[in-house]
């Protein structure tokens, strides 16, 4: 379930920030986000890729562009400047003018995808979500909510309360998730909701567990009231 998508069905006067803007809001609250460079030309993209280090990811970035993968505006695991240039052109064509720019990011490899988010509940105000991410969000529907503000122990209890909580342990040779870092993310999402009345919802999907179990937000979307 996507917190934001669900909310969009309820209220009309809402728009989404671009991924880059959303990422910067999370970053300003200390939520670990993947490095990103916003570029406007093919040349800038190639330079940014070299600076970032291969392999890289290119993503179309624009407010309202919330289903990037579906429209072909995400190109993964690009290993050469030629691939970057070609991906840049393909995304420009796919987005058909709805772009603020294109993001160049390092390719993150991770086997464990989580989801986190915030939604403003009509009765309880800002609520924080945590659960299994990626396609598992839709397939397994395994998420848990807490009402903001969260204490660290609320965040810890929230992680334990999903059915798939074992994924945070040392599974199949991976390292256990950095639960303290995850807890800080969840507490911060609640703070963003409490401190910003115009923010209606946040999706952080996926929230990947990197090597070492440290979480990083790889994609983010924030919905605000106009």
């Amino acid at each position: 379930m996507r917190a934001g998508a669900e909310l969009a069905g309820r209220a009309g006067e809402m728009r989404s920030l671009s991924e880059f803007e959303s990422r910067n809001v999370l970053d300003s609250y200390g939520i670990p986000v993947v490095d990103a460079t916003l570029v406007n030309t093919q040349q800038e993209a190639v330079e940014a890729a070299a600076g970032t280090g291969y392999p890289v990811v290119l993503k179309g970035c624009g407010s309202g562009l919330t289903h990037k993968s579906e429209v072909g505006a995400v190109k993964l695991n690009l290993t050469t400047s030629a691939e970057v240039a070609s991906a840049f052109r393909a995304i420009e064509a796919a987005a058909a003018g709805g772009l603020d720019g294109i993001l160049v990011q390092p390719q993150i490899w991770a086997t464990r995808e989580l989801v986190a988010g915030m939604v403003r509940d009509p009765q309880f105000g800002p609520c924080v979500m945590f659960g299994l991410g990626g396609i598992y969000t839709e397939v397994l529907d395994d998420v848990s909510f807490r009402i903001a503000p969260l204490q660290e122990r609320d965040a810890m209890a929230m992680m334990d309360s999903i059915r798939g909580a074992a994924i945070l342990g040392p599974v199949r040779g991976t390292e256990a998730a950095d639960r303290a870092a995850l807890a800080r993310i969840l507490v911060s999402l609640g703070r963003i909701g409490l401190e910003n009345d115009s923010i209606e919802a946040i999706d952080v999907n996926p929230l990947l567990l990197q090597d070492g179990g440290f979480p990083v937000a790889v994609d983010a979307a924030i919905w605000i009231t106009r």
Partner: protein
Amino acid sequence: MQGSPGLDAMLKPESIAVVGASRDKPGASWVDMFGQLVEFGYRGRLYPINPKADVIRGHKAYAGLTDLPEPVDLVIVGLSAPIVPWILRDCVATGNRNVHIFSAGFGETGEEQGKVLQEEITKIAVEGGLRVIGPNSMGVFSPRLRLVTWAGAPEAVGSVGILTQSGGFADGIIGYGSQIGLSFSTVVNYGTGLTVDASDLLEYLSDDPETDTIGVYLEGVADGRRLFDAVARTTRDKPVVMVKPGASRAARRTAASHTGSLAGDDRVWQAFFAQSGAIRVDSVQEMAHTIDAVRRLPRPAGNRVAVLGTGGGSSVLAADACSRAGLDLPPLSAEARAELRETIPAAGNIITNPVDAHDVMTDPAQMPAVLKVLSSQEYLDMVVVYFHVDWMYDVAPDRIAALATFLAESGSEHMNGKPLVATWRSYRSGPEYGKVIREMREILVDGGIPLFPDIDSTARTLARLAEYSGFVASAEAT
């Protein structure tokens, strides 16, 4: 009091006017609220209002609110919906600020006329500063004041406070609760809750010195954040046991048509329970048993339980019931088994967990030593004694009462401060079994040992008790 001193007068009124009091006739029908008040023996000053009567049940009748000799603490309105706006205007004009509207036929019907009427009375109440419970509400039950407007209420005065949107739930929890030994301070069925809602009432019961435990039946709430804060402030000192239906789609529809309020997303309600420390239950019976357990029992240190009973198959089923509910059933240590073996004869008695020991169940003299061993294990937090009524009856009909009497009189003394509860099973028909079961129940209820109707509800209630206990401990640690 959280800014609502008027609620104290409203819920502990010293004077009541009943608008639409039925004229004298023998017996009080269920809709005759004035008759119910008189028959229950309300201790305050009573004013029936009915322009067609001079005297009703020995009380001087008045033509209208404007004729009363004093403003009253509570006005009860039982007239049909279209007349209610006129009465509310009279209340505003005469300074009678606290109103209970019994009448139905407003927004809860979902029909246009009802919605229009509800908008009208809401406007009158808000602008006139009226505190209104209802419409569609049975009102207030206070045994200490002998205040009730419905039939069949018990007289016992206690310290359980209930607030409920549903009138049927109020009647249910009072009825079933009384059977298992609960008695009440205040029960409020607030129905639509026009200007007094669940948050106001929760804050009131939270501060009420006559109430030590609170039960809530709630389908929806106007300001969830306020209710959340009020509950979270309360649960450390006063347990709050709550039914919040609306988890399934069918229940959601029912909730909407019943009260006109929305039942929120159940996931957010799960968060509400996890963070506020309110104990979630699913029925009248579960609420009653959970309130009973949380009031009478010491707080368990964890969720690890020992079951003491008899019968191999039923022990396996009991173990499954505990595990389903989220309880741990640790195996007994070799030392504990050896100690128990000193008391319990070998033949036919299996010393593990559950302990399957028919000798102990039929000979209370063995019980103190057994309870002492079980309760002194640091890996056990609670003990369940499981009566197999039919089999104990076969050994000797008086064995059931003998064990119950032992538990009631001195069971807790051997528990090292850990919770001790009882449950039972009986599958035979016949009045002799009904008789010993009633006797067992009375002895245990009077003796303060919580008795649950089956092993599954026992396990669920103990799991909730352990969870609540953990919440309080972690809240106190931070």
